[in-house]
């Protein structure tokens, strides 16, 4: 039968039954009671083997299976490469540009769902007491909101942008492993579907926050397993993509593209990929241990049986702190591109910009326990972790000051990508400064686990990451779609999002410091006015994003045809047509200089021999 969604559906069903059969037969033979243990059947059948069946049915493994079974593999077969109609976006496609768009479209579906969940629980928080839902539902909405936003929106949205841009910027025809690239993408909707499906589980969705601390997580209803396993699929997707980026960046740079001639977006994704590959196995381990405690009755985190409760937090944060940089370094790369191009100046201090990324990478692994200052860990760990955390402000500061120096005396174009870039710098500085308060142990002891934390992470992840994602989408929109978005709507989107974002999250600093803990379905009456204000602002924030979707959808369908290089940028993706040819370059370009040589007379980044960029008349 032909690969596709029909085959995927019945393969998923078949593989679920296979998983269930393995569990039931082992339990039956061993004489374990009950034979039908739905915790185990869900973990193995529904959350492990069924997704493998889905991928198999979809055709993600076809090529490798042909090869293994000795059937002809057609190495030069490009039938699954490139998009010639909308249906090609719903297949296993090996074109990095198609995969980039698949990533972005998928992640924005999860962004909308996660955002709607936030508005639901903000509605509950508009007044003290419980109005619309019970506390299990509330805790579930908070947890699924965070899981969607972190694991299947921000991290993979950056992977999507990089998937589209990095091979083009390197002068490469595609990623190093296109089939692996296709597989990594298709792992992602599986993870997102698991997070969402947990609402259908008996007892409700996982409800222990995205941090999912043991031992609470080991004794929750079955929905918790959907988080434990969803993280595995999202993590596998991240790791495979990161390996692909590393190999692509190391081996597929165009001739002349030395490391010191790579655009900073490529540097950023190189660093991020290293972080992903080193750190992600730790969260995979932490979630497996919690799940084993539950379904296999191990005692990793069961204190009565010799388990060590704080062990979970150490393993979890050893990934989840570097994850913060996984969610911001690609954004740094995007902003470096935009600030340089839109200021018409070379990026200030290029080498230090690249080295500061590596500085953050190294320091990022020495700060995880700053999430645990009140956790009860060894006292002596607190001061060293505080110092290393504070020192991360140094490479981060280098980046901010270098962007500012790039603006200086430039010829600034204040279009939508640039507005988002400048908005990002201002908001990220606030998020970074509130991070200094949290690094200081005595202040953190007061502010930890309060709404101050909620404010801080939203300044970093929304004011930081999400604004850079918007900036990147507007910047590469003409290259991706071949059409131009509406500047007027883009500016409306920026200003409404920027203002309502601040109105939503800035008051949270205050309400946290004066005494409101986070992750609470109910609160003391004295916080009522501020919470009502925050709820109203959050609805405005939700509404502001509608403009973005309207702009993107209408412009993609009917926007004016884009030029190949509307920003007059030097990097390679702008030297080919919009959208680029199926294999990117008709002839591999020769790189002859740096990527940001604006204002240098006669400077060029690369020479394209064969195809001069075709200037499409607007």
């Amino acid at each position: 039968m032909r690969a596709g969604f029909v085959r995927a559906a019945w393969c998923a069903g078949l593989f679920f039954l296979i998983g269930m059969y393995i569990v039931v037969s082992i339990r039956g033979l061993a004489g374990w009671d009950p034979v039908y243990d739905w915790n185990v059947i869900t973990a193995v059948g529904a959350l492990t083997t069924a997704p493998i069946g889905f991928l198999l049915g979809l055709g993600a493994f076809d090529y490798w299976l042909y090869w293994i079974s000795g059937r002809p593999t057609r190495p030069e077969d490009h039938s699954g490469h490139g998009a010639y109609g909308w249906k090609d976006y719903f297949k296993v496609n090996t074109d990095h540009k198609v995969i980039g768009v698949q990533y972005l479209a998928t992640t924005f579906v999860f962004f909308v769902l996660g955002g709607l969940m936030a508005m639901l629980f903000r509605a509950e928080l508009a007044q003290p007491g419980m109005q619309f839902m019970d506390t299990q539902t509330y805790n579930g909405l908070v947890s699924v909101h965070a899981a969607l936003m972190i694991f299947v929106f921000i991290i993979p949205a950056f992977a999507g942008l990089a998937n589209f841009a990095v091979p083009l910027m390197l002068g490469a025809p595609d990623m190093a492993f296109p089939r692996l690239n296709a597989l990594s993408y298709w792992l992602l909707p599986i993870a997102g579907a698991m997070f969402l499906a947990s609402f259908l589980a008996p007892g409700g969705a996982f409800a222990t926050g995205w941090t999912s601390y043991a031992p609470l997580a080991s004794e929750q209803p079955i929905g918790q397993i959907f988080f434990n396993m969803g993280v595995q699929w999202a993590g596998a997707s991240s790791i495979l993509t990161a390996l692909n980026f590393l190999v692509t960046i190391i081996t597929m740079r165009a001739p002349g593209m030395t490391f010191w001639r790579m655009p900073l977006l490529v540097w950023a994704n190189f660093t991020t990929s290293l972080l992903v590959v080193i750190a992600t196995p730790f969260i995979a381990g932490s979630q497996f241990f919690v799940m084993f405690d539950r379904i296999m009755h191990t005692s990793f985190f069961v204190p009565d049986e010799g388990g060590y409760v704080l062990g979970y937090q150490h393993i979890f944060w050893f990934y989840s702190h570097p994850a913060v940089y996984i969610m911001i370094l690609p954004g740094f790369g995007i902003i470096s591109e935009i600030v340089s191009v839109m200021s018409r100046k070379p990026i200030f201090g290029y080498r230090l910009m690249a080295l500061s990324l590596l500085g953050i990478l190294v320091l990022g692994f020495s700060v995880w326990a700053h999430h645990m200052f009140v956790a009860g860990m060894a006292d002596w760990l607190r001061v060293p972790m505080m110092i290393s955390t504070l020192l991360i402000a140094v490479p981060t500061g280098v980046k901010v000051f270098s962007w500012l120096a790039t603006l200086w005396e430039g010829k600034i174009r204040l279009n939508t990508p640039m507005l988002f870039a400048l908005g990002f710098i201002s908001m990220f500085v606030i998020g970074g400064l509130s991070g200094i308060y949290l690094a200081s142990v005595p202040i953190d002891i007061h502010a930890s686990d309060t709404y101050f934390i909620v404010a801080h992470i939203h300044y970093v992840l929304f004011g930081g990451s999400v604004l850079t994602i918007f900036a990147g989408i507007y910047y590469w929109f003409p290259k991706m779609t071949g059409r131009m978005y509406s500047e007027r709507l883009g500016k409306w989107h920026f200003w409404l999002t920027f203002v309502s974002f601040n109105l939503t999250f800035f008051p949270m600093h205050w309400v946290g410091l004066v005494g409101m803990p986070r992750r609470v379905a109910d609160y003391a009456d004295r916080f009522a006015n501020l919470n009502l204000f925050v709820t109203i602002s959050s609805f405005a924030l939700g509404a502001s994003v509608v403009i973005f979707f309207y702009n993107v959808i209408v412009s993609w369908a009917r926007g004016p045809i884009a030029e190949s290089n509307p920003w007059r940028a030097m990097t390679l993706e702008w030297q080919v047509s919009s959208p680029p040819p199926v294999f990117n370059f008709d002839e591999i370009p020769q790189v002859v200089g740096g990527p940001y040589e604006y204002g240098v007379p006669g400077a060029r980044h690369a020479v394209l021999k064969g195809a001069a960029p075709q200037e499409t008349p607007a």
Partner: protein
Amino acid sequence: MAGIGVVVAILVTLVAVLIPWLPTSASEEMDRIEFVFWFATVICIGIFALVMAVIIYSVMTFRAAPEDESDGPSIHGHTGLEVVWTVVPAVLVVAIGVLSAVVLSQNGSAGTNPLKVKVFAQQFAWRFEYPQQDKLKSGELVLPLGRSVEFDMTSADVIHSFWIPEMGQKQDLVPGIQTKIVVTPKRTGTFTLVCTELCGLGHATMRAPVRVLSQADFAAWVKERQSGGGGDPGAAVFTAAGCGSCHTFSAAGANGKIGPSLDNLAAAAKQAGQPVPVYTRESIVNPGKVIANGYSDGVMPNNYGESYSAKEIDALVRYLTGAKQ
């Protein structure tokens, strides 16, 4: 540009000063936290004003005209500037770090003669024990003014966290290990202890009342509680065990919503087909046996039969059933 910087700095300073960012301090530890807080704030205002001034000034001054297609000057960097903005922030954050380390050490010291209080947390209640006062048990945290209190804490089930916002200090209670924290109350009054670590269904309302009394009043309170206080012993257990944080019980003025109301025990016992005292006792020591409509199993702790003596449970049953008749 300097002008813009000054304006931004003044605006941000007004925001910092006019809004009461921190609760009115009620402990010596919170005073020190406030000092670090303001030290960091001064530095942060300076940095924020500098960044915003450069952005606003650049956008106003260096904006290109729509038809201007020229490039800016090809400035690639400036070693001196790069050294400055690497070294200066490093010095500033190390200064914050040193001050923080000193304050952390001061805030962890309980002096020579601390009052010791044991704290037990479980879903979703707090219990306190005063080992130096004949193991006095209480569901309300009562502290003397001006004396350092060393809390020795643990949890029976999942992780909870101890925080009295006005006193600043916070510490998780972790099953399987003991954690410590020091608080030195500096003004009398009533406060609320809140749980700040997500611990399940009742997390949002897992609170306990806190009172700071003068040393004389504290001694009097201890004495009264040790002599039984003349009150109903069942009521004392009700308070000490924190029943009211989950259950509504009018006689005790409790209005918790996590578990079923205790105002109608007779009707519930009838439904279960048991005499009221038997049903009530069983529901305390073995809460999973009969689950009230609309509530789920596994929420109420099942160890009250062990943490309280048979005599105390008897008194509690009499209090819960008798108060209605």
